[in-house]
């Protein structure tokens, strides 16, 4: 009989902090600069250069740590992690080992099989390394140190995850927390959030952990899912054949859907960590923590609960609205301007998301004034414009942020409510479409819609469709009585 296995997964997640400058020097962190234009003696590891800690990095790390329900170490301290590789010109990375800023927290995740807490072992601050480009046609590699010294936090979980779905839920939760805190944009594709997966398997019912491997280069949720399933199967196969799993670092190739061994995993002792004498200990006073706690944002989960309770929105709607802090903010402000949360939610979920998707835009790239959408909602509510025109106006708001009442006036989109004018238009249509009128009177209800459409067209779309319907019905039915 085949044995049953259990997969044990722990994650190391690196998050790039959205500070303006690097962690230990005044170089810009702006993405996409020409190579080495954001470098100085500190971030290129020149002898004698003195690193000085960016206070914002500590603040961001603390806010993240508090959101992950962590304990804070005070004092916390920086250590040198020694290794030789050209992406790291100092020959050591400044990191934290002995006294990391945060430890022992948790995040709650939700998957199809319910809620679960994933424990956080520790979270520390460190510097990022430079970027190596391997030249295919020569025997050299080129190094760009713009990324060297960009602040990172590394969040190390306990081995509490059992499936790829749990891993994805955990990462989505971390991303949402970091985005709501505005400490990072957490883009996997661009590397501002990176996840290394530690995975081992063991026979179900046993307690000892098996030998684990670490997988790198996972830059989408899909890649993570595929890599986890692939590695689980690879390890089970080895065990079934009576072979041993080797502790090593493996690199995932998403195109080939296959991972290969990079190097046998170094032990912590191989990095010869020791306290960095250049950097002073950081004492974190209770007042600072208290201030940060008070100023934590309302997170996605809290917003969802409030939207459902306060605005009576559906579970599905609030899930979409809180997917990004930016979207939630647009919704809240629109609601403030128009006082109609349901309508505001409909415009956000319907038209806003549709247009964003059509254009392949990120939520953060949506820039229209909530006041303009709020105004439009009020105009629609008053019946001054029909839905079809409202959608046209909204597109203008979405793309060009126009002022709706002015635009509607200028483009003659105000719904005609003059009964006399409407009646006149209906009369004309009835006269011109005698065949359709006859069919309607013979009981063909479909032609009614056709006649409404024709009337709307002669009014250039600027009529109140409800009124047109009413007048048309009156006239058609009255004449039917006479005949």
């Amino acid at each position, binding site marked *: 009989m085949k044995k049953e296995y259990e997969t044990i997964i722990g994650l190391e997640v690196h998050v790039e902090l959205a*500070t*303006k*400058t690097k962690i230990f*020097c*005044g*170089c*810009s962190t702006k993405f996409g600069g*020409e*190579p*080495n*234009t*954001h*470098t*100085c*003696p500190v971030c*290129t590891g*020149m002898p004698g250069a003195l690193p*000085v*800690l*960016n*206070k*914002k*990095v*500590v603040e961001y790390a603390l806010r993240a740590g508090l959101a992950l329900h962590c304990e804070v170490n005070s*004092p916390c*301290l920086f250590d040198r992690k*020694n290794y*030789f*590789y*050209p992406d790291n010109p100092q020959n050591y990375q400044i990191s934290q080992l002995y*006294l990391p800023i945060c430890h022992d927290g948790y995040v709650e995740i939700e998957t199809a099989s319910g809620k679960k807490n994933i424990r956080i072992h520790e979270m520390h601050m460190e510097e990022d390394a430079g970027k*190596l*480009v*391997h*030249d295919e046609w*020569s*025997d*050299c*590699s*080129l*190094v*760009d*140190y713009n990324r060297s010294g960009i602040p990172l936090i590394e969040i190390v979980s306990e081995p509490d995850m059992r499936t790829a779905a749990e891993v994805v839920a955990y990462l989505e939760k971390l991303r949402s927390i970091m985005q709501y805190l505005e400490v990072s944009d957490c883009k996997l594709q661009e590397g501002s959030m990176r996840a290394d997966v530690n995975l081992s398997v063991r026979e179900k019912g046993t307690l000892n952990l098996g030998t684990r491997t670490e997988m790198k280069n996972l830059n989408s949720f899909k890649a993570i899912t595929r890599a986890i399933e692939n590695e689980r199967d690879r390890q089970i196969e080895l065990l079934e054949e009576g072979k041993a799993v080797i502790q090593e670092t493996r690199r995932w190739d998403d195109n080939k859907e296959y991972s290969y061994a*990079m*190097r046998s995993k170094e032990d912590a002792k*191989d990095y*010869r960590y020791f*306290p960095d*004498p250049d*950097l*002073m*200990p*950081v*004492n974190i006073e209770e007042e600072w923590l208290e201030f940060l706690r008070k100023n934590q944002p309302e997170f996605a989960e809290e917003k969802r609960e409030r939207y459902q309770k306060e605005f009576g929105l559906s579970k599905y709607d609030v899930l979409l609205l809180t997917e990004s802090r930016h979207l939630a903010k647009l919704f809240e402000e629109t609601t403030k301007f128009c006082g109609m949360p349901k309508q505001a939610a409909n415009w956000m979920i319907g038209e806003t998301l549709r247009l964003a998707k059509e254009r392949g835009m990120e939520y953060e790239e949506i820039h229209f004034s909530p006041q303009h959408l709020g105004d439009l909602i009020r105009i629609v509510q008053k019946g001054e414009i029909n839905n079809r025109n409202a959608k046209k106006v909204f597109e203008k708001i979405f793309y060009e942020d126009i002022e709706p009442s002015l635009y509607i006036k200028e483009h003659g989109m105000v719904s005609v409510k003059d009964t006399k004018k409407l009646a006149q238009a209906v009369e004309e249509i009835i006269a011109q479409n005698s065949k359709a009128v006859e069919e309607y009177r013979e009981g063909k209800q479909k032609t009614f819609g056709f006649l409404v459409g024709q009337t709307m067209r002669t009014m250039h779309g600027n009529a109140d469709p409800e009124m047109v319907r009413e007048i048309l019905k009156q006239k058609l039915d009255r004449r039917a009585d006479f005949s």
Partner: protein
Amino acid sequence: MKKIDDEMMESLSVLSKLYLTEKEKEKMKEELWKILDYVEKLNELDTEKTKPGVHVFENSNVFREDVVENGDMCEEMLANAPAKKDGQYEVPKTIG
């Protein structure tokens, strides 16, 4: 105190990227052992009443504000590079 054996020597050599001749290795083993032995002496100190410290200096909380201070110093920085190409540092090919 355990002496430095060949295996330890080999591992240190790999980590420090120093490749020594047999003669140098023997000499180094002896010197390393002397250093360890010397450090070992610290264990003889009575630290029962000493407060644990985290750093050699008493200072703490030395911070910078998050303000960009450095402009483009690419050229000056690359002046120190033994080899360069297209505004980048040229190094022997590395994979991994």
